[in-house]
């Protein structure tokens, strides 16, 4: 397993390098850090603009710039300097990751629990009214545009707050600007802020996962060993959980691992609507600031997420399913 992981990670290195190179070319050709400076009123002097070009490394050949970026990353662990003053890319990316992680962990927990329950119940009661109802609801969530749903949810939350005269839902930010003192009140504050974005993402993610869980549960239920277990006279509960659920969870687990990569790279829309300064907003603001190194840093981290989560998905598969041998 370890050997396999190491080999996979080593295999990923050329992908990463190739990917950074392609992305570097793309970023270099589309994100011009000079843009904001070209239209200042009053304008910057030509000498100042030249000085900026040097500062941003635009006077060097493209390959040289890529090499500088790569060696900076590999030798010094830096993402290069930002075109913004007082902006440390690594540090800001760290904050963004922490914020996104909070969102993602909450989302996955809720979505996973929902998905497993709904998936199992609908599989066991396949073609029942309950199955049709939950399937329809699931498909409805699958068909909702994220921001449309988020806007509605926010609207309802505010109406709820106003109608009840409470402040149960916070509509913005990951915490209050000046959170209350003490651990518990702070936790409560964070929880209030988490409800809406987490519910948004969780409902949208659970829908796909519950379909997945239903499908694999159905497959397991139809398998010979389940029939055998039932024939042996084991209690239905025991059959379902010891034999059924355990095996049916395998595909879902790997799927969740894969989807996590996408969530980690930033639920751009959810983060925008709820003003969570996570990975998604980091990227959008990097583009708005026309800051190539920020964009590069974000893309690199995202690529690493994808590769690592892919690996984890494969490893999980092997751990959970003894029939799979990694080689």
């Amino acid at each position, binding site marked *: 397993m370890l*050997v*396999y992981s*190491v*080999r996979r990670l*080593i295999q990923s290195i050329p992908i990463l390098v190739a990917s950074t190179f392609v992305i570097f070319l793309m970023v270099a050709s589309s994100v011009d850090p000079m843009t904001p400076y070209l239209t200042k009123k009053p304008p910057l002097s030509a000498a100042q603009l030249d000085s900026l070009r040097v500062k941003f490394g635009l006077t060097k050949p493209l390959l040289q710039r890529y090499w500088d970026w790569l060696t900076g990353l590999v030798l010094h662990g830096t993402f290069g300097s930002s075109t913004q003053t007082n902006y440390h890319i690594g540090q800001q990316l760290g904050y963004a990751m922490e914020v996104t992680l909070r969102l993602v962990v909450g989302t996955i927990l809720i979505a996973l629990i929902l998905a497993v329950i709904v998936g199992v119940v609908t599989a066991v009661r396949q073609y029942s009214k309950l199955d049709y109802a939950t399937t329809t609801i699931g498909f409805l969530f699958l068909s909702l545009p994220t921001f449309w749903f988020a806007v509605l949810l926010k609207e309802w939350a505010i109406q709820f707050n106003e109608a009840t005269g409470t402040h149960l839902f916070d509509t913005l930010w990951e915490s209050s600007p000046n959170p209350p003192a003490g651990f518990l009140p702070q936790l409560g504050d964070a929880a209030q802020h988490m409800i809406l974005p987490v519910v948004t993402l969780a409902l949208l993610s659970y829908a796909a996962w519950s379909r997945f869980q239903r499908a694999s549960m159905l497959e397991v239920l139809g398998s010979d060993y389940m029939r055998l277990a039932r024939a042996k006279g084991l209690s239905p509960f025991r059959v379902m959980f010891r034999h059924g659920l355990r095996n049916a969870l395998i595909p879902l687990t790997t799927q969740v691992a894969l989807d996590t990569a996408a969530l980690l790279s930033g639920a751009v829309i959810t983060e925008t609507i709820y003003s969570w300064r996570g990975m998604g907003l980091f990227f959008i603001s990097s583009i708005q600031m026309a800051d190539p190194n920020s964009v590069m840093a974000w893309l690199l981290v995202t690529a690493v997420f994808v590769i690592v989560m892919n690996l984890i998905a494969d490893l999980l598969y092997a751990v959970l399913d003894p029939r799979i041998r990694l*080689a």
Partner: protein
Amino acid sequence: MTTTDTTAGAEPILSVRNLVKEFPIKSASVVRRTIGAVHAVSGVSFDIQPGQTLGLVGESGCGKTTTSRAILHLQPATSGEVLFQGRDVTKMSKGELRRMRRDMQIVFQDPYASLNPRITVSEIIAEPLRIHGLYGNDGPGQVAELMRLVGLNPEHGNRFPHEFSGGQRQRIGIARALALKPKVLVLDEPVSALDVSIQAGVINLLEDLQDELGLAYLFVAHDLSVVRHIADRVAVMYLGKIVEIADGNSLFERSQHPYTQALISAIPIPDPRRERERERIIVQGDVPSPADPPSGCRFRTRCPLRMTLSETDAARCSAEEPELRDRGLGAGHLTACHFVEA
């Protein structure tokens, strides 16, 4: 391995010489090196005369299917020669191989898996003709003729394989193999997947076709009973090697090798009374791993004969590999065992 299967008579249409097929085993370390090999086929030699049938018999995993694939170059051999009409298949170019395939065809074991479920039967049978550019204006006629030849109703040509029974499917497979009018047909357990009641029908068909078209068969099977009917010569394989090869009658009547004897003793006898009295030779233990075959005689770990031998004789089994040669029976009856001289 210098001994060859020397049946007197005409020039063989297919000669296999010292055929070896090994599958590499890769290490599980970070850098994947080849650290060993599965010795699936370890030096097999035989000849097939035109219009004759060679039965190739052995347990599952003994290498007989690999042999048949290597002969057709579906899995390239590691070493050795496969001479088809005197020309070495293993050294053929792509184009030569394609031409060779017109003359040497294969029928597969599983009539369900070997037919593409998405294609109609007439298209399946027409495919070889199309591949080799022979599907002209009379293509449909040829296909209908082939279907009739194997006993299928040509009107069913536009149906899909799943609409046919197992026996019918195997006939489709045979019709496909015959479409190019081959000279040699490799039959890879063509009836093992079929019900016993249907097996006879297919075997009869194969015999009729051989008579009609003058085909040579390499008939691969895992038990001797099927081969008995159809084979002119029979080769018995154990763990990648031929342990005994002889004309059909000679093998069944005068088998020398303990393994062959064990196989023959396992054939059920239709008479219940005799069947009850039949003395069975039980071979003990499991087949050793082909990745690490026993030294000397490969059968020695399970050999009933070896248990009766003196210690020195038994030591010879593990020290020296028995040569496949005439052990006193003549008439091309070759055996690979140190202790069976007649």
